[in-house]
């Protein structure tokens, strides 16, 4: 699954550690999600969407 988290995080000027703190997860988790090595659960995906004020489908897109 592809996602725009790195882009959205960059727009807000947050580091991976800052985003991790806001979502109450580890920085490694953010890194794994951003690099597409890990797809988050639905609750975490919702938390990410809520934090960025966007819909899940605008952040996460299935592989082409």
């Amino acid at each position, binding site marked *: 699954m592809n996602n725009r988290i790195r882009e959205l995080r960059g727009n807000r000027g947050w580091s991976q550690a800052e985003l991790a703190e806001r979502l109450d*997860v580890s920085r*490694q988790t953010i890194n794994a999600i951003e690099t597409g090595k890990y797809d988050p659960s639905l609750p975490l995906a919702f938390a990410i969407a809520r934090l960025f004020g966007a819909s899940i489908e605008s952040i996460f897109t299935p592989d082409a």
Partner: protein
Amino acid sequence: MRALEKRYRRELFLAMAAYVVVMLLIYPLARQVEAPFWRALVALAPVLPFAAALRAIIRHVRDSDEFQRRLHLEALAISSVVVSLLSTTAAFLVAAKVITLDGTVLFWVFPALAGLFGALRCWNARRYGRE
């Protein structure tokens, strides 16, 4: 470092420090105590700090985020399977009287499990990018 990691390190350090103290000061007395009940009690004294260490590990895994938990459990699953295979292999050889092992070999089960888990967990962390 996240608060969760700090709590885990503190709890594990205290438990392991207590374990070392008990092993150095109390456990050696087990052979000098005559009464079976008290001897059993002294011999089992290390189990308490050991259980505290396991509690710290369980709390750490339980309170980790979903991705970290996946890494922990993946490493735990593989290390359990490998240690089970090795111990069963040794048991077959002992049963067939190919090798001789006494009961103290059981002391090595947990260190083997913990060591392999740690190595696999580090490997997993490297695979997904260090924290």
